[in-house]
Protein backbone atom coordinates (compact mmCIF):
# COMPACT_ATOMS: atom_id res chain seq x y z
CA UNK A 1 0.00 0.00 0.00
CA UNK A 2 1.15 3.54 -0.68
CA UNK A 3 0.00 6.65 1.04
CA UNK A 4 -1.56 9.27 -1.25
CA UNK A 5 0.58 11.89 0.45
CA UNK A 6 3.84 10.04 -0.21
CA UNK A 7 3.14 9.10 -3.82
CA UNK A 8 5.33 10.68 -6.50
CA UNK A 9 2.55 12.78 -8.12
CA UNK A 10 1.84 14.43 -4.75
CA UNK A 11 5.52 15.28 -4.23
CA UNK A 12 5.66 16.67 -7.79
CA UNK A 13 2.51 18.74 -7.10
CA UNK A 14 4.18 20.30 -4.03
CA UNK A 15 7.18 21.27 -6.20
CA UNK A 16 4.86 22.71 -8.87
CA UNK A 17 2.99 24.83 -6.31
CA UNK A 18 6.31 26.02 -4.81
CA UNK A 19 7.57 26.95 -8.30
CA UNK A 20 4.35 28.90 -8.97
CA UNK A 21 4.77 30.85 -5.72
CA UNK A 22 8.45 31.55 -6.59
CA UNK A 23 7.45 32.89 -10.02
CA UNK A 24 4.87 35.21 -8.48
CA UNK A 25 7.33 36.41 -5.82
CA UNK A 26 9.93 37.19 -8.51
CA UNK A 27 7.31 39.14 -10.47
CA UNK A 28 6.10 41.11 -7.45
CA UNK A 29 9.53 41.92 -6.02
CA UNK A 30 11.32 43.13 -9.15
CA UNK A 31 11.07 46.81 -9.97
CA UNK A 32 14.31 48.04 -11.55
CA UNK A 33 14.55 47.83 -15.35
CA UNK A 34 17.75 45.75 -15.31
CA UNK A 35 16.10 43.26 -12.95
CA UNK A 36 13.19 42.76 -15.32
CA UNK A 37 15.20 40.85 -17.90
CA UNK A 38 16.56 38.40 -15.35
CA UNK A 39 13.17 38.02 -13.69
CA UNK A 40 11.40 37.37 -16.99
CA UNK A 41 14.00 34.85 -18.11
CA UNK A 42 13.72 33.15 -14.70
CA UNK A 43 9.93 33.09 -15.00
CA UNK A 44 10.20 31.40 -18.42
CA UNK A 45 12.80 28.92 -17.14
CA UNK A 46 10.64 28.06 -14.10
CA UNK A 47 7.64 27.55 -16.42
CA UNK A 48 9.77 25.15 -18.50
CA UNK A 49 10.75 23.17 -15.39
CA UNK A 50 7.08 22.97 -14.36
CA UNK A 51 6.10 21.77 -17.85
CA UNK A 52 8.84 19.11 -17.68
CA UNK A 53 7.49 17.75 -14.39
CA UNK A 54 3.91 17.75 -15.73
CA UNK A 55 5.04 15.88 -18.85
CA UNK A 56 7.38 13.38 -17.19
CA UNK A 57 5.37 12.59 -14.05
CA UNK A 58 1.71 13.45 -14.64
CA UNK A 59 1.61 12.44 -18.33
CA UNK A 60 4.06 9.60 -17.55
CA UNK A 61 6.44 10.40 -20.40
CA UNK A 62 9.20 9.24 -18.00
CA UNK A 63 7.98 5.65 -18.44
CA UNK A 64 6.90 5.99 -22.08
CA UNK A 65 8.88 4.57 -25.03
CA UNK A 66 12.21 6.35 -25.59
CA UNK A 67 11.10 8.02 -28.84
CA UNK A 68 8.31 9.90 -27.01
CA UNK A 69 10.64 10.86 -24.16
CA UNK A 70 13.21 12.24 -26.61
CA UNK A 71 10.53 14.08 -28.65
CA UNK A 72 9.15 15.69 -25.49
CA UNK A 73 12.57 16.74 -24.16
CA UNK A 74 13.65 18.14 -27.55
CA UNK A 75 10.38 20.07 -27.97
CA UNK A 76 10.60 21.53 -24.47
CA UNK A 77 14.22 22.57 -24.91
CA UNK A 78 13.51 24.10 -28.34
CA UNK A 79 10.45 26.11 -27.26
CA UNK A 80 12.16 27.29 -24.05
CA UNK A 81 15.30 28.45 -25.88
CA UNK A 82 13.14 30.09 -28.59
CA UNK A 83 11.00 31.99 -26.07
CA UNK A 84 13.93 33.11 -23.90
CA UNK A 85 15.99 34.13 -26.96
CA UNK A 86 13.07 36.04 -28.49
CA UNK A 87 12.43 37.83 -25.21
CA UNK A 88 16.09 38.53 -24.51
CA UNK A 89 17.04 39.77 -27.98
CA UNK A 90 14.02 41.87 -28.83
CA UNK A 91 11.54 42.46 -26.07
CA UNK A 92 13.81 43.68 -23.33
CA UNK A 93 16.11 45.99 -25.27
CA UNK A 94 13.71 48.97 -25.63
CA UNK A 95 12.91 48.73 -21.92
CA UNK A 96 16.58 49.08 -21.07
CA UNK A 97 17.01 51.92 -23.55
CA UNK A 98 14.13 53.93 -22.11
Amino acid at each position, binding site marked *: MRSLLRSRPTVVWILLVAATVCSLALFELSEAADE*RRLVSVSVLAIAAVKVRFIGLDFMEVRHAPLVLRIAFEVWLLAITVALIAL*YWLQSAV*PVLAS
Partner: protein
Amino acid sequence: MLWLCSDQASFAPGITVSVDGGWSQHEMRAQTTKRLPGEEGIWVFICGDLMVFSIFFIVLLFYRSQNLPVFAQSQQTLSQSFGVLNTLLLLTSSLFVALAVRALRCEPAPNRELATRLVGAAIACGAGFVVVKGFEWSAKISAGHTLSSNDFYMFYFMYTGIHLLHVLVGLLVLSLVLMVTRRPQLEPAAVRMVEAGGVFWHLVDLLWVFLFALFYLLK
Protein backbone atom coordinates in the same frame (compact mmCIF):
# COMPACT_ATOMS: atom_id res chain seq x y z
CA MET B 1 -3.99 8.44 6.40
CA LEU B 2 -5.26 8.12 2.84
CA TRP B 3 -4.04 5.13 0.87
CA LEU B 4 -3.66 4.93 -2.89
CA CYS B 5 -4.58 1.25 -2.90
CA SER B 6 -7.16 -0.18 -0.51
CA ASP B 7 -6.21 -2.81 2.02
CA GLN B 8 -5.57 -6.03 0.10
CA ALA B 9 -7.86 -7.92 2.48
CA SER B 10 -10.87 -5.98 1.31
CA PHE B 11 -10.37 -7.31 -2.20
CA ALA B 12 -9.12 -10.84 -1.55
CA PRO B 13 -9.97 -12.00 1.95
CA GLY B 14 -7.59 -14.60 3.26
CA ILE B 15 -5.05 -14.16 0.48
CA THR B 16 -1.76 -12.54 1.36
CA VAL B 17 -0.22 -10.49 -1.40
CA SER B 18 3.41 -9.54 -1.02
CA VAL B 19 4.07 -5.89 -1.67
CA ASP B 20 7.61 -4.64 -1.58
CA GLY B 21 8.47 -1.47 0.33
CA GLY B 22 5.14 0.22 -0.30
CA TRP B 23 5.34 -0.09 -4.09
CA SER B 24 2.47 -1.91 -5.77
CA GLN B 25 3.41 -4.66 -8.21
CA HIS B 26 2.17 -2.57 -11.10
CA GLU B 27 4.22 0.43 -10.05
CA MET B 28 7.30 -1.78 -9.79
CA ARG B 29 6.66 -3.03 -13.33
CA ALA B 30 6.22 0.54 -14.50
CA GLN B 31 9.71 1.33 -13.21
CA THR B 32 11.28 -1.26 -15.48
CA THR B 33 9.08 -1.56 -18.57
CA LYS B 34 8.33 1.25 -21.00
CA ARG B 35 4.74 1.73 -22.04
CA LEU B 36 2.61 4.40 -23.67
CA PRO B 37 -0.22 5.65 -21.41
CA GLY B 38 -3.60 5.72 -23.21
CA GLU B 39 -3.84 5.26 -26.96
CA GLU B 40 -1.44 6.26 -29.74
CA GLY B 41 -4.09 8.60 -31.20
CA ILE B 42 -4.15 10.87 -28.14
CA TRP B 43 -0.37 11.35 -28.39
CA VAL B 44 -0.61 12.27 -32.08
CA PHE B 45 -3.23 14.88 -31.12
CA ILE B 46 -1.06 16.16 -28.26
CA CYS B 47 1.99 16.54 -30.51
CA GLY B 48 -0.09 18.53 -33.01
CA ASP B 49 -1.60 20.71 -30.29
CA LEU B 50 1.83 21.42 -28.78
CA MET B 51 3.13 22.47 -32.21
CA VAL B 52 0.19 24.84 -32.73
CA PHE B 53 0.58 26.41 -29.28
CA SER B 54 4.36 26.68 -29.75
CA ILE B 55 3.69 28.85 -32.82
CA PHE B 56 1.10 30.83 -30.79
CA PHE B 57 3.70 31.53 -28.07
CA ILE B 58 6.37 32.64 -30.54
CA VAL B 59 3.92 34.88 -32.44
CA LEU B 60 2.86 36.44 -29.12
CA LEU B 61 6.43 37.32 -28.13
CA PHE B 62 7.15 38.63 -31.63
CA TYR B 63 4.16 41.01 -31.51
CA ARG B 64 5.10 41.95 -27.95
CA SER B 65 8.55 43.00 -29.12
CA GLN B 66 6.97 45.19 -31.83
CA ASN B 67 4.70 46.99 -29.37
CA LEU B 68 6.21 46.87 -25.89
CA PRO B 69 4.52 49.95 -24.33
CA VAL B 70 1.00 48.72 -25.19
CA PHE B 71 1.79 45.21 -23.91
CA ALA B 72 3.36 46.51 -20.68
CA GLN B 73 0.47 48.90 -20.03
CA SER B 74 -2.24 46.34 -20.81
CA GLN B 75 -0.55 43.66 -18.72
CA GLN B 76 -0.90 45.89 -15.64
CA THR B 77 -4.67 45.56 -15.91
CA LEU B 78 -4.45 41.76 -15.49
CA SER B 79 -4.90 40.30 -12.03
CA GLN B 80 -1.99 38.05 -11.05
CA SER B 81 -4.18 36.72 -8.23
CA PHE B 82 -6.70 35.34 -10.73
CA GLY B 83 -3.82 33.86 -12.74
CA VAL B 84 -2.22 32.17 -9.72
CA LEU B 85 -5.58 30.90 -8.47
CA ASN B 86 -6.31 29.34 -11.85
CA THR B 87 -2.80 27.83 -12.00
CA LEU B 88 -3.29 26.22 -8.58
CA LEU B 89 -6.74 24.92 -9.59
CA LEU B 90 -5.37 23.24 -12.73
CA LEU B 91 -2.26 21.85 -10.99
CA THR B 92 -4.43 20.36 -8.23
CA SER B 93 -6.92 19.01 -10.74
CA SER B 94 -4.05 17.38 -12.65
CA LEU B 95 -2.74 15.81 -9.42
CA PHE B 96 -6.16 14.30 -8.70
CA VAL B 97 -6.33 12.78 -12.20
CA ALA B 98 -2.76 11.42 -11.95
CA LEU B 99 -3.61 9.78 -8.61
CA ALA B 100 -6.92 8.42 -9.99
CA VAL B 101 -5.07 6.69 -12.85
CA ARG B 102 -2.66 5.11 -10.35
CA ALA B 103 -5.51 4.03 -8.08
CA LEU B 104 -7.02 2.13 -11.02
CA ARG B 105 -3.74 0.22 -11.40
CA CYS B 106 -3.82 -1.18 -7.87
CA GLU B 107 -3.47 -4.93 -7.71
CA PRO B 108 -5.09 -7.33 -7.21
CA ALA B 109 -8.09 -5.02 -7.73
CA PRO B 110 -8.34 -1.38 -8.84
CA ASN B 111 -9.37 1.15 -6.20
CA ARG B 112 -12.38 2.34 -8.18
CA GLU B 113 -13.98 4.14 -5.24
CA LEU B 114 -10.93 6.37 -4.68
CA ALA B 115 -10.49 6.91 -8.44
CA THR B 116 -14.12 8.02 -8.76
CA ARG B 117 -13.76 10.49 -5.89
CA LEU B 118 -10.51 11.87 -7.29
CA VAL B 119 -11.95 12.36 -10.78
CA GLY B 120 -14.97 14.09 -9.21
CA ALA B 121 -12.61 16.42 -7.31
CA ALA B 122 -10.65 17.06 -10.53
CA ILE B 123 -13.87 18.05 -12.33
CA ALA B 124 -14.72 20.42 -9.44
CA CYS B 125 -11.29 22.11 -9.75
CA GLY B 126 -11.69 22.37 -13.54
CA ALA B 127 -15.13 23.91 -13.11
CA GLY B 128 -13.55 26.33 -10.62
CA PHE B 129 -11.08 27.37 -13.33
CA VAL B 130 -13.98 28.15 -15.70
CA VAL B 131 -15.77 30.21 -13.02
CA VAL B 132 -12.61 32.21 -12.18
CA LYS B 133 -11.96 32.78 -15.91
CA GLY B 134 -15.57 33.95 -16.27
CA PHE B 135 -15.09 36.51 -13.47
CA GLU B 136 -11.79 37.63 -14.96
CA TRP B 137 -13.14 38.09 -18.47
CA SER B 138 -16.31 39.88 -17.35
CA ALA B 139 -14.20 42.28 -15.24
CA LYS B 140 -12.03 43.05 -18.26
CA ILE B 141 -14.96 43.49 -20.63
CA SER B 142 -16.87 45.74 -18.22
CA ALA B 143 -13.69 47.85 -17.87
CA GLY B 144 -13.80 48.35 -21.64
CA HIS B 145 -11.03 45.89 -22.59
CA THR B 146 -12.17 43.70 -25.46
CA LEU B 147 -10.73 41.61 -28.28
CA SER B 148 -10.50 44.71 -30.48
CA SER B 149 -8.93 47.05 -27.87
CA ASN B 150 -5.30 46.38 -28.86
CA ASP B 151 -2.87 43.61 -29.82
CA PHE B 152 -2.33 42.53 -26.22
CA TYR B 153 -6.04 42.01 -25.58
CA MET B 154 -6.54 40.38 -28.96
CA PHE B 155 -3.92 37.75 -28.06
CA TYR B 156 -5.11 37.53 -24.45
CA PHE B 157 -8.75 36.79 -25.33
CA MET B 158 -7.86 34.61 -28.32
CA TYR B 159 -5.26 32.39 -26.61
CA THR B 160 -7.02 32.10 -23.24
CA GLY B 161 -10.26 31.51 -25.17
CA ILE B 162 -8.77 28.62 -27.16
CA HIS B 163 -7.34 27.29 -23.89
CA LEU B 164 -10.75 27.64 -22.20
CA LEU B 165 -12.21 25.57 -25.04
CA HIS B 166 -9.62 22.89 -24.16
CA VAL B 167 -10.72 23.09 -20.51
CA LEU B 168 -14.39 22.63 -21.48
CA VAL B 169 -13.56 19.65 -23.74
CA GLY B 170 -11.38 18.29 -20.91
CA LEU B 171 -14.27 18.55 -18.46
CA LEU B 172 -16.45 16.63 -20.88
CA VAL B 173 -13.74 13.97 -21.19
CA LEU B 174 -13.38 13.76 -17.39
CA SER B 175 -17.16 13.29 -17.10
CA LEU B 176 -16.83 10.28 -19.42
CA VAL B 177 -13.88 9.05 -17.34
CA LEU B 178 -16.06 9.36 -14.23
CA MET B 179 -18.69 7.12 -15.84
CA VAL B 180 -15.98 4.56 -16.67
CA THR B 181 -14.53 4.48 -13.14
CA ARG B 182 -18.02 3.80 -11.76
CA ARG B 183 -18.43 0.65 -13.85
CA PRO B 184 -18.39 -2.58 -11.84
CA GLN B 185 -15.89 -4.15 -14.27
CA LEU B 186 -12.86 -2.37 -15.74
CA GLU B 187 -11.57 -3.89 -18.98
CA PRO B 188 -8.05 -2.98 -20.19
CA ALA B 189 -9.63 -0.81 -22.91
CA ALA B 190 -11.51 1.17 -20.26
CA VAL B 191 -8.31 1.77 -18.28
CA ARG B 192 -6.60 2.96 -21.48
CA MET B 193 -9.50 5.36 -22.06
CA VAL B 194 -9.07 6.76 -18.54
CA GLU B 195 -5.31 7.13 -19.16
CA ALA B 196 -5.93 8.92 -22.47
CA GLY B 197 -8.45 11.27 -20.83
CA GLY B 198 -5.93 11.95 -18.08
CA VAL B 199 -3.15 12.72 -20.56
CA PHE B 200 -5.41 15.24 -22.33
CA TRP B 201 -6.24 16.91 -19.00
CA HIS B 202 -2.53 17.21 -18.16
CA LEU B 203 -1.99 18.85 -21.58
CA VAL B 204 -4.57 21.50 -20.60
CA ASP B 205 -2.56 22.09 -17.40
CA LEU B 206 0.77 22.15 -19.26
CA LEU B 207 -0.43 24.75 -21.79
CA TRP B 208 -1.76 27.00 -19.02
CA VAL B 209 1.67 27.01 -17.30
CA PHE B 210 3.20 28.69 -20.38
CA LEU B 211 0.18 30.98 -20.93
CA PHE B 212 0.32 32.12 -17.30
CA ALA B 213 4.03 32.96 -17.58
CA LEU B 214 3.69 34.74 -20.94
CA PHE B 215 0.62 36.86 -20.19
CA TYR B 216 0.80 37.50 -16.45
CA LEU B 217 4.43 37.37 -15.36
CA LEU B 218 6.62 38.59 -18.22
CA LYS B 219 8.05 42.06 -17.62
